């Protein structure tokens, strides 16, 4: 029977969904060699927010992370993700920056790119896809799943046809970032998309937000999907992806074949369970079915953002009102899919509408740019009255006649005042706040040492020898006995 492939996204979406993107390079390196031989088609490493999290919180140079991991996984293609014309931000960045970004991804070792546009405006991606292909990168373009009167199977059929024609990607994926798919809809959607992609492989990426993703993934395989996105069990479930352990087992039970090495997967999961415990980070827990999710469609990360915005004004109690407002705005704004950046833009507008007591009295720069079509053509037309009202705001007036600046890389280099820096550093300086970039560059090389969680005795020895607050230690458990004696100075001996 057919062999089903898997893409591991523990290092990308697993900790983005469960650990606020705080996994360090050191957490990954000790098991990288196991991940390399565990039988994955690809390992996804970098998303959009990872660059920011690396610089802002971890002070790790993201390009260095890519190089370290590419070296540690020589036989598995590593993947990254870029978001339309925003790349990694919520704003629109110059074309020259996007092209250089893709080239630098390739140069640092990335072999696969997921290039997506949540409006399905393929004009936004044409340049990126051709640049990536030229750089020898495999391109996967997703259809982003959403629930709305316009997001029908016919809509996706048409968008798929256009995508194949305009972009000719290597593979196509169905991306259910909010976890809204049901097994029933999976069946009709996968069958429809499959009809229009020729012989290209079809991939399935579904979040477990409402608890249904494991079923949807299995259903999608039965309808012809070739590759499933999964995570190692400690970072699976909850708002993350199905676990590789169960997905592999379930598909084999249905008679499918896979290339997964169970022993390697077990060891990797042991390691991440250890990291979670050592760092005080949560493990993924299967989510319960949640009917409200299908109504408001706001992803988990954005709910956290909304709660924060409201709490800053002491108005946490108005979340429900904001969620209701979000569904109204979505309709008026032509049903954007509620993922970044649109979940943020629509969510912030909803907070403004609710808190100012008058709808659309004010907006953000991104809100104005969205309704003016700067992010691309929305799936359905924007309500004309809303558009008029927003054009009256200072932001609306400002962006009505705005033209996206298109500086060349040479211009940007000149502007930065640093003629000698590398392209990698230039990109970081153009796209991220100066103080975070500076702090990261000052932090020096990334620390990659970390105890191996799948080898508890070794981890214990490493942890104990690193401590300086005792001179003698004896650990005993069943037949295991370990004695560490610390002699004078820093010399340590292990019996």
């Amino acid at each position, binding site marked *: 029977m057919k062999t089903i492939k898997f893409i591991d996204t523990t290092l990308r979406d697993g900790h983005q969904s469960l650990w606020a993107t705080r996994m360090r390079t050191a957490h990954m390196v000790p098991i990288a060699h196991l991940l390399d031989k565990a039988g994955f088609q690809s390992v996804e490493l970098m*998303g959009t*927010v990872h660059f920011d999290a690396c610089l802002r*919180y971890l002070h790790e140079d993201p390009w260095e992370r890519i190089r370290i991991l590419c070296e540690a996984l020589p036989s598995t293609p590593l993947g990254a993700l870029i978001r339309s014309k925003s790349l990694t931000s919520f704003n629109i960045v110059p074309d020259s920056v996007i092209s250089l970004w893709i080239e630098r991804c390739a140069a640092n070792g990335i072999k696969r790119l997921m290039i997506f546009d949540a409006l399905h405006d393929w004009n936004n991606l044409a340049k990126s896809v051709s640049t990536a292909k030229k750089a020898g990168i495999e391109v996967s373009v997703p259809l982003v799943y959403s629930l709305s009167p316009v997001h029908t199977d016919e809509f996706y059929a048409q968008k798929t046809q256009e995508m194949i024609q305009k972009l000719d990607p290597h593979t196509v994926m169905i*991306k259910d970032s*909010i976890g809204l798919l049901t097994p029933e809809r999976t069946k009709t959607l996968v069958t429809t998309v499959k009809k229009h992609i020729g012989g290209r492989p079809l991939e399935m990426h579904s979040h477990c937000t409402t608890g249904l993703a494991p079923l949807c993934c299995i259903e999608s395989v039965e309808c012809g999907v070739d590759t499933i996105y999964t995570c190692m069990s400690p970072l699976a479930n909850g708002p993350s992806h199905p676990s590789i352990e169960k997905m592999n087992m379930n598909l084999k039970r249905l008679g499918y074949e896979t290339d997964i090495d169970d022993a390697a997967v077990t060891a990797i999961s042991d390691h991440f369970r250890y990291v979670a415990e050592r760092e005080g980070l949560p493990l993924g827990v299967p989510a319960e079915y949640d009917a409200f999710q299908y109504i408001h469609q706001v992803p988990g990360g*954005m709910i956290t953002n909304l709660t924060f915005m409201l709490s800053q004004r002491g108005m946490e109690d108005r979340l429900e009102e904001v969620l209701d407002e979000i569904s109204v705005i979505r309709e008026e704004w032509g049903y954007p899919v*509620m993922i*970044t950046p649109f979940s*943020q833009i629509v969510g912030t507008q909803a907070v403004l509408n609710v808190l100012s007591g008058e709808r659309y*009295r004010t907006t953000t720069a991104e809100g104005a740019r969205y309704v003016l079509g700067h992010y691309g053509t929305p799936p359905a037309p924007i309500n004309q009255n809303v558009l008029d009202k927003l054009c009256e705001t200072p932001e609306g007036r400002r962006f009505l006649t705005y033209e996206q600046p298109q500086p060349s890389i040479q211009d940007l280099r000149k502007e930065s005042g640093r003629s000698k820096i590398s392209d990698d550093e230039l990109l970081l300086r153009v796209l991220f706040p100066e103080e975070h970039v500076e702090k990261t560059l000052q932090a020096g090389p990334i620390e990659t040492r970390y105890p191996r969680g799948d080898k508890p005795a070794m981890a214990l020895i490493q942890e104990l020898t690193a401590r300086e607050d005792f001179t003698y230690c004896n650990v005993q458990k069943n037949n295991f006995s370990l004695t560490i004696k610390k002699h004078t100075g820093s010399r340590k001996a292990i019996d």
Partner: protein
Amino acid sequence: MTRISRVLIANRGEIALRVIRACREMDIETVLTVSEADRLSLPAQMADRSVCIGPPLSSQSYLKVDTIIAAAIGVGADAIHPGYGFLAEQPELAKACAKYGLIFIGPRAEHIKQMGDKIFARQVAVDTGISIIPGSQLIGDYRQAAEFADQTGYPVLLKAAAGGGGKGMKIVKNPADLRVAFNEASAEARSAFGDERLYLEHYIENARHVEIQLFGDGHGNVVHLFERDCSLQRRYQKLVEEAPSEALDPGLREKVCRAAVKIAAQIEYQNAGTVEFIFDRDQEQFYFLEMNTRIQVEHPVTEQITGIDLVKEQFGVAAGNPLSFEQKDVNFVGHAIECRINAESPENNFLPSPGKIEQWIAPEGDNIRLDSHCFPGYVVPPFYDSLLGKIIVTGSSRSEAIEEMSAALRRFQISGIHTNIPFHRQIMDHPDYQTGEINTRWIENRLAKEHHFHEDD
């Protein structure tokens, strides 16, 4: 002079336990009032006796003056200690005590009432020649703004009258910039809120919260016990307190302590009290904020550096004795820091986290003091504030105290409920805190800055 032999403690939690301990040392019998939720609490077990005064909701128990007075008379107490919070700053309990011949261990009812009235308190400060922060004024046009700004002094803050969320807010550092800022702020206010009216007030960029501990005895003595620095706050709730304040040099300290004594002396204040000031670090200027007429949560840091037991002194003064020390006897050595340990989850926007404490392993040491009513198996009730206790560490210097606190927090093991200990650890380990580069907005600014914006894709 009267002898207090039995006291009714009209409070709960760590302060009830603190008062019980002081009473034991003074050989005073204790009767504790408890709500139905606190019957099995540690102070209830430690008190000589406890009386249940009603259901868990404090409005039906700890805040009921009549019930508390009836309990005091019923058990034959000759005094009531109100602790802090609840009825400590309600003149009604003090008044009722006077009426029924009970000693109220705190200031006189009239002082509670007077200093609780912000306008009266500010007037007392002005009368004694102490600056107050000029209040906000609604301004209609640029001319008015310029006039008022000259009066209050620069920098000034312009904010939308209808405002909120930072829209229409402008800080103006010198008169030359006022006109442009005024026009921009009113335009922004108009577009954001449809109302261009602005408030103007004096703006303190780098504010410290500094408060002076006082004691008056009604025999003409008012003595200060130096300052506490309580600048680390979140939403006006103090989180970390320390004494002395490293923002003050001896000259400034002398000045502000004398100002505080003057205010208390002016009204012949009796018992423990605290005068709070906002200290503008850039201008080295003090502004009177308010006076608290009670023992405060953070009193231990003062006790640690001065060696004076404030709660015991409260009993002495309430019984009519003169203060047991004079100003010249009060000195301080070392540096003390207090962290308030709350049952709340910092990762979850400081949501309260009541529940059963499974594990409670507190750090111990010569320099560590823990004022807490918690123990393994204690169920933190959801009805009251989330304070689990206070950990107070004393060192010979500020940096030593910070280091000791950081180590103590690392050793503090609590499970079953969430606490803000990890948040305190981050503060202790933060270079801004260690170098004193903090102010009253530091925590909120830092939280906003370090908030992680989640993305979904």
